[in-house]
C-alpha cells in the first residue's frame, strides 16, 4: 500500500498493537493463538507425514521399516515416470515462455492503451482463471475433437498429445501472467516514463530502458506462476493428453486411483520439493523493494 500516507499507517498499526493484544481478553487471545497453531498444523502435518513416509523402506505403506531412499531409486528407474516427467517439463517450459510473452503484452495493452475490443478483452482475460478446471478441460476436449475432424478432411491425422496439452496450458496461463503483470503496472510510477520521453527517448527506448526493467519482477513472478500452474495441472492435462503422452501429475492421479504405493510417496515428495522451490523463488521476487518510492 504505497499510496497510504505514512502517519496514518503508523497510527493504525499502533491501534492494532493496543487492541490486538491488551484490548482483547486474555482467554480470547489464547484461543486465537491456539487456532493459529491448529491451522498451521493442519496445513503442514499431512505434507510432513508424506515426506517422512517416502523414506520408509517397507513395501507396505503403513509399516515403518527403517530409513531408506529405495523408493526414490525405483521411481527414477520407472520408464513411465521418466517419460511423463519429460512431457511435463516440455509442456511447462514451452507454455511458460509463450504465455509470458503474450500475457505481458495483453497486460501492457490493457493498462496503457485504448483500442477496439479493449473492454471485451478485459472481461475475457479473467474467465480462464475463475472457470472450474473441469469445464475448461471438457471445452478444450470438444474443441480439439472438432479441429481434428476438420484437419482429417484435409489429410494429415492428428491426435491428442504433447502439443495439445501445451496449447491448453498456454490458454489458461496467459490470463494468470496478464493479471500478475497488470498488478505490477498498477503501482507503476508513470512520471518515470514521462521523464524519459521528455529527454527525447523514443517510445521503444523508453520501453526497453525504463518500463521493462521496472515491471521485470512482475513478469518474472508471472512466469513462475505459469510454470507452477503448468506443473501442477491435472484436470486439463488429463483431458487433452493422448495415449502416447501424459504428464507426471496425470500419471500420479491415475495411479492414486489404483491405490497408494511407496513409489507414489517418493514421486510426490519430489514434486513437492520442486514446487516449494518455485514458491520460495517467486516470493523472493515479489517482495517489495525498498527503493521504490
Amino acid at each position, binding site marked *: 500500500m504505497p499510496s497510504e500516507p505514512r502517519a496514518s499507517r503508523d497510527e493504525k498499526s499502533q*491501534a492494532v498493537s493496543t487492541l490486538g493484544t491488551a484490548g482483547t481478553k486474555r482467554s480470547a487471545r489464547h484461543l486465537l493463538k491456539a487456532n493459529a497453531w491448529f491451522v498451521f498444523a493442519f496445513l503442514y502435518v499431512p505434507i510432513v507425514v508424506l515426506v517422512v513416509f517416502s523414506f520408509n523402506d517397507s513395501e507396505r505403506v503403513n509399516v515403518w521399516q527403517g530409513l531408506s531412499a529405495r523408493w526414490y531409486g525405483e521411481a527414477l528407474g520407472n520408464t513411465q515416470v521418466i517419460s511423463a516427467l519429460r512431457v511435463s517439463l516440455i509442456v511447462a517450459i514451452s507454455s511458460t515462455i509463450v504465455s509470458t510473452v503474450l500475457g505481458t503484452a495483453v497486460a501492457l495493452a490493457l493498462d496503457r492503451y485504448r483500442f477496439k475490443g479493449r473492454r471485451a478483452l478485459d472481461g475475457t482475460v479473467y474467465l480462464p482463471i475463475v472457470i472450474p478446471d473441469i469445464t475448461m478441460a471438457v471445452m478444450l476436449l470438444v474443441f480439439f475433437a472438432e479441429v481434428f475432424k476438420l484437419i482429417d478432411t484435409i489429410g494429415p491425422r492428428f491426435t491428442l498429445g504433447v502439443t495439445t496439452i501445451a496449447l491448453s496450458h498456454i490458454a489458461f496461463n496467459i490470463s494468470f501472467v496478464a493479471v500478475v503483470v497488470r498488478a505490477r503496472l498498477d503501482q507503476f510510477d508513470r512520471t518515470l516514463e514521462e521523464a524519459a520521453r521528455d529527454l527525447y527517448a523514443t517510445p521503444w527506448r523508453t520501453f526497453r530502458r525504463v518500463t521493462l526493467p521496472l515491471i521485470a519482477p512482475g513478469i518474472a513472478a508471472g512466469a513462475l506462476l505459469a510454470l507452477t500452474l503448468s506443473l501442477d495441472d491435472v484436470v486439463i492435462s488429463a483431458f487433452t493428453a493422448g495415449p502416447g503422452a501424459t504428464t507426471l501429475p496425470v500419471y500420479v492421479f491415475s495411479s492414486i486411483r489404483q491405490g497408494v504405493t511407496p513409489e507414489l510417496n517418493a514421486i510426490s515428495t519430489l514434486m513437492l520439493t520442486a514446487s516449494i522451490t518455485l514458491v520460495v523463488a517467486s516470493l523472493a521476487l515479489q517482495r517489495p523493494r525498498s527503493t521504490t518510492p
Partner: protein
Amino acid sequence: MPSLRRAKPAAAQSTDAGPDTPPLLTPAELAAQRRKRRTGTLIATPGALYLLIFFVVPLGLITVYSFATRTSTGRTSLSGWNLNSYERIADDVILGIIARSAWLAFLTTVLCLVVAYPFAYYLATRPPRLRARLLVLVMIPFWTNGLVRIFAIRFLLGSNGPASALSEAMGFGTFRILFTPTAVVLGMVYGFLTFMVLPLYVALERMDWRLVEAARDLYASGAKAFWRVTVPLTRSGIVAGCVLVFVPSFGSYVVPEILGGAKTLLIGSYVARQFQAARNWPLGAALSVLVIVAMLVAVAINQRNSANAERTQGVTR
C-alpha cells in the same frame, strides 16, 4: 484475487483520452492519438487472438454441443438441435448430484470461514515483521502442488494409514472416513482454506483499527465492537473468500475422485464421466454450461461487493 480486478487508476484514464474528450486537438495530437491506438491494437492482438481461438471458440462450441443430439452409438450428432440435455438436468439423479455438490461446497465454505477468520485476525494483529514471516508460511502450501497435497490427505487417512494407526495405538480403534463425504469436505477445506485466509487477511490488515478503538471508548464490549464494527468493515473480504472457496469446491473434480467414494459423486466427476465412459457429450456440455453460468453469477456478486467496499473504504479513510 478480487483486489487485482479493481478499477484502473485514475492516471490511466486521464492520459489516454478517447474521442469523447473536448475537441481543439491539433492535427499532430490527433495523429499521435491514432498512432497510440494502433500500437495498443498491435500489442494486444496476439494474446487476444490466442484467447479467442483457445478459449472463446471452445466456450461457444460447448454451448453448441449442449443443444446437440447423442446418437445410439455414443457419438454426437450436430443436427436436430434440441433441449433434451437441459431437460435431463431436471432428472432426480442429476438434481441430487447438483444438490450434493452445492451442499458439500457450502459446508466447505462455512468451515473455511469459521477457521480462517480468527486465523486471519491473528495474522493481521501480529507485529509487521512476524506477520510477514507467518504470511510466507501461509503462502507455501497455497502454491504447493495441489494434487500432492490431496494425495497426502489420502495417504494420511488410508484404511491402515498413519492416522488410523495412531488412533489404534491410542485405543480409539480404527477409523474409516476415507471415501465418505466427510473426507471430501476435509480435503476441500485443506485444498481451499488459503483462498479464504488471504482475502480476509487483506481486509483485516487494511481495516482502520481506530474505529474499533472508538467503539471501545464508547463502552462497546469487545464482542459488540467485533460484531458491529470489525465484521461489517471486513465484509468485502468475507464475501470474496466465500466466493473463492465455494466456486472451486462446487466444480471440484480431483478431490472427490481421490477422497470420495460411490456415495460422493459430485458434479465435476459427473461431467467428466459424460465425456469418458458414459459418452454423452451433449449432457456433459449442458452441465458444463450450467456450471459456467453459476460461476459467472458468483463472480458478479463478488465484483459488485468489492466495488461497494471500495466506495465505503473511501469514506472511512
